[in-house]
């Protein structure tokens, strides 16, 4: 997030797009709801599903799945046409405005209505509300990123925010809400193919020299492969060994048939986890890890706040903290790593990751600290881009709307979107063992609009068959207006109804994120 969670409560307009916040970031959603109910803030929800936030919204734009760029271009069209953009800000702090203006000119409200199904009048109202607000914050999550145009969607959010001068101010910004507890930290720490910790590029000679010195080893210059590319590499036999720490791609990845074949093709699969997951069952070596309550460390939340994790109970049996296991393997491989505690590793991070330089365990004892935090005297950073962007001027990206990779047709007439539900988390490994969660949500449901259900002769609770061009599964139907006509929703927490046998592995070309929000399916009574 460019801004802080706290600020959401004290802004004037909140634009929530592709984020089912009450289920995926529940405690943060309370800030939105308090802003609306107690402080008179206005909420604009842009989402194909009638999510719970709609109840609190001033405006709800129900766009067709995958038409986000068109909707945002349409809003910018209105804002520019009506001259309600932040002229001075655009002049002084950005570049590329003319190109943007030219591109969005074609996205008239009428045209956008045709693409997205959002009524022109609603689009105008939303554009005006956002542009004229004193402070306005954009929140988004996987509903924006899990598209082949995910990167475009995100850039479009940045466009509209800059256009209206809503970035670099308290209560403003463009704020991605991270789905998993430490996605932010995993990225910050360089668990990415292209960068070292703190986003320092591996391809940069100077940076590499610095790390070679710090780590006492020669380092490869060529950027590596992403998850989906690694899977493909395994399938083709280019990747021979895979070490998986705490992930369960056998449920979470797109096109599971392909994933399974790829993993089975490996010479060596090492899986380190807290349970014998679907992925671990395929492994040659399984290593038992301690879970979060059994070790010390830090997580970095979605607002860049680094916070302590503390050991509360002993790990079961021989299980060890992930860091101890990595060090154990490394030593055996002839590259010793000697750390007595997680705090010692953080001390090393302080030395090599400039944005984490001032974040020590001692300081974290009382409260979390938001990076960038360049030294131990620095209080941390609540919001980014205050006076300037990291690249100097903010750059507008003129972006054309591209339809989703997969279109519906007579055979597959319905759009399936996948996501999470309140009571479960990711691949279900953890929440499915919780009595409470299972009591509230014991199985995967196919959320279908009443009119579609009627047409298909499907009753509430009836088992239905969902088929895509890649696979088929069965689950019970839940008839609800939360799903728009022509769309269904399913969660991906249950391996019994693993939706990723259905989903389309088409990737965003830059973000490499699969299009989980749009795949064409057929629904029929089972």
């Amino acid at each position, binding site marked *: 997030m460019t801004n802080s969670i706290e600020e959401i409560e004290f802004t004037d307009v909140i634009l929530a797009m592709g984020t089912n916040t009450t289920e995926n970031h529940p*405690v943060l959603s309370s800030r939105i709801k308090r802003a609306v109910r107690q402080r008179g803030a206005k909420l604009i929800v842009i989402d194909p599903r009638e999510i719970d936030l709609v109840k609190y919204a001033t405006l709800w734009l129900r766009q067709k799945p995958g038409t986000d760029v068109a909707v945002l271009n349409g809003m910018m069209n209105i804002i520019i046409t009506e001259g309600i953009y932040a002229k001075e800000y655009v002049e002084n702090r950005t570049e590329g405005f003319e190109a943007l203006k030219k591109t969005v000119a074609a996205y008239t409200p009428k045209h956008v209505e045709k693409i997205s199904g959002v009524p022109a009048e609603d689009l105008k109202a939303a554009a005006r509300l956002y542009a004229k607000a004193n402070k306005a914050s954009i929140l988004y999550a996987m509903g924006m990123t899990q598209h082949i145009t995910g990167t475009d969607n995100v850039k479009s959010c940045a466009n509209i925010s800059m256009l209206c001068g809503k970035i670099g101010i308290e209560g403003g910004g463009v704020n991605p*809400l991270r789905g998993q507890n430490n996605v932010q930290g995993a990225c910050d720490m360089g668990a990415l193919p292209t960068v070292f910790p703190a986003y320092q590029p591996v391809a940069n000679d100077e940076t590499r020299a610095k790390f070679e010195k710090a780590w006492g080893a020669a380092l*490869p210059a060529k950027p590596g492969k992403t998850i989906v590319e690694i899977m493909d590499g395994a399938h083709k036999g280019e990747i021979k060994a895979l070490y998986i720490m705490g992930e369960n791609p056998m449920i979470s990845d797109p096109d599971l048939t392909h994933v399974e074949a790829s993993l089975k093709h490996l010479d060596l699969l090492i899986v380190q986890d807290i349970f014998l997951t679907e992925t671990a069952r395929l492994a040659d*070596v399984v*290593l038992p890890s301690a879970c979060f*309550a059994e070790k010390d460390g830090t997580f970095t939340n979605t607002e860049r706040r680094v916070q302590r994790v503390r050991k509360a109970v002993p790990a079961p049996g021989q299980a060890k903290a992930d860091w101890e296991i990595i060090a154990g393997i*490394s030593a055996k491989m002839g590259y010793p790593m000697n750390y007595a505690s997680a705090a010692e590793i953080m001390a090393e991070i302080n030395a090599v990751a400039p944005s984490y330089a001032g974040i020590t365990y001692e300081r974290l004892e009382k409260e979390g600290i938001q990076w960038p935090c360049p030294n131990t005297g620095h209080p941390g950073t609540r919001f980014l881009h205050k006076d300037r962007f990291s690249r100097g001027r903010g750059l507008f990206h003129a972006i054309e709307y591209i339809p989703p990779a997969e279109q519906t047709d007579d055979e597959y007439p319905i759009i399936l979107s996948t996501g999470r539900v309140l009571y479960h988390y990711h691949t279900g490994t953890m929440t499915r063992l*919780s009595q409470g969660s299972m009591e509230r949500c014991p199985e995967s449901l196919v959320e279908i609009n009443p009119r579609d259900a009627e047409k298909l002769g499907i009753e509430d609770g009836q088992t239905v068959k969902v088929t895509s061009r890649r696979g088929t599964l069965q689950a019970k139907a839940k008839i609800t207006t939360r799903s728009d006509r022509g769309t269904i929703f399913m969660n991906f927490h249950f391996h019994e109804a693993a939706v990723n046998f259905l989903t389309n592995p088409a990737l965003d070309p830059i973000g490499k994120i699969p299009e989980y929000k749009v795949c064409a399916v057929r629904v029929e009574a089972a």
Partner: protein
Amino acid sequence: MEKKIPLNMDGRDVEAVAGQTILEVAREQGIYIPTLCHYSKTTNVGACRVCVVEVEKARSLVASCCMPVSPGMVIKTDTAKVRASQRLIVELLWASGDHNCLTCEQNGACELQNLVYWLGIEKPRFNVAPPGYETEKTNTMIQRDLNKCILCGRCIRACNEIQVNEVLDFSGRGSRAKVGPAFGADYIDSDCYFCGECVDACPVGALTFKQARFAGRPWELKKIRTTCPYCGVGCQMDLNVYNDRIVKVTGNRAYEQPNGGSLCVKGRFGLDFVGHPDRLKTPLIRKEKGGELAAATWEEAYGFIADKLSGIKKNNGPESIAGFSSARSTNEENYLFQKFMRAGIGTNHIDHCARL
């Protein structure tokens, strides 16, 4: 500059800030005034009146949680009249419910029990007449025993004003007044999100965490602050541990950012996995493709991995080795993982599930 308000409290000359309540000023001064229905960050409703004080020239006792200070106020928090009034209220509350502390989960952490003790009440003056409700046991997360409810309304305000889940309200009047979800429904049949905010807010044993029942007394529990392992909000929470087991998870309002003590169902009730019998306890090795996974020691596992990885690296180059790090592991572990892959193995094929 905020306007300063001079006043006198228990004989001390004090400077308050305009808009502060008497209670807030007292707390700043370290003067104890008991409260029950007051719950910070929610509206003051003045329901219990246990927070009364004497204010010179006021006609009657004043509820300090609701009363803003004004210049020249002379306040007394511990007069005989104040104490008598507080006693009466507490004795009535005691008599109105089934406050049998022997089996109450809240014993030792109950605000009513503490007040009885603080006021030195030997035994109840009135006949105890609990309303005779059934204890609600229809879900495994929250147990509701309205026989212990003192109708302070904190649960309602926690649900509506803090979480803004808008599930709880009062129903009925007088002696039939009740708190709960609409239409007298059980929690499990309502729109409740099971965030547990209402349970943390309840000052007595009316709302308790069901799985924590008989699993350890409040004074036996060790509270350990940590960060929720689920979503990216990163809520701060207290793991309540007894005998090396997590008994319950509570919010802590002293932890301001990012959640101010609030949690959701996942952080609150989603930790059964921690002590689950299915947890992996030893390394497992499959010696040959197609064979079974069999238990092994760490030494064997490390040896097996190092042999295989070194062989693959030698024959196919480091580029043939890849690793998935984890958005669920700590920063330190992610750091070490990529360091191992890059420096130990010599490959940049490192990624994690950020995108999924």
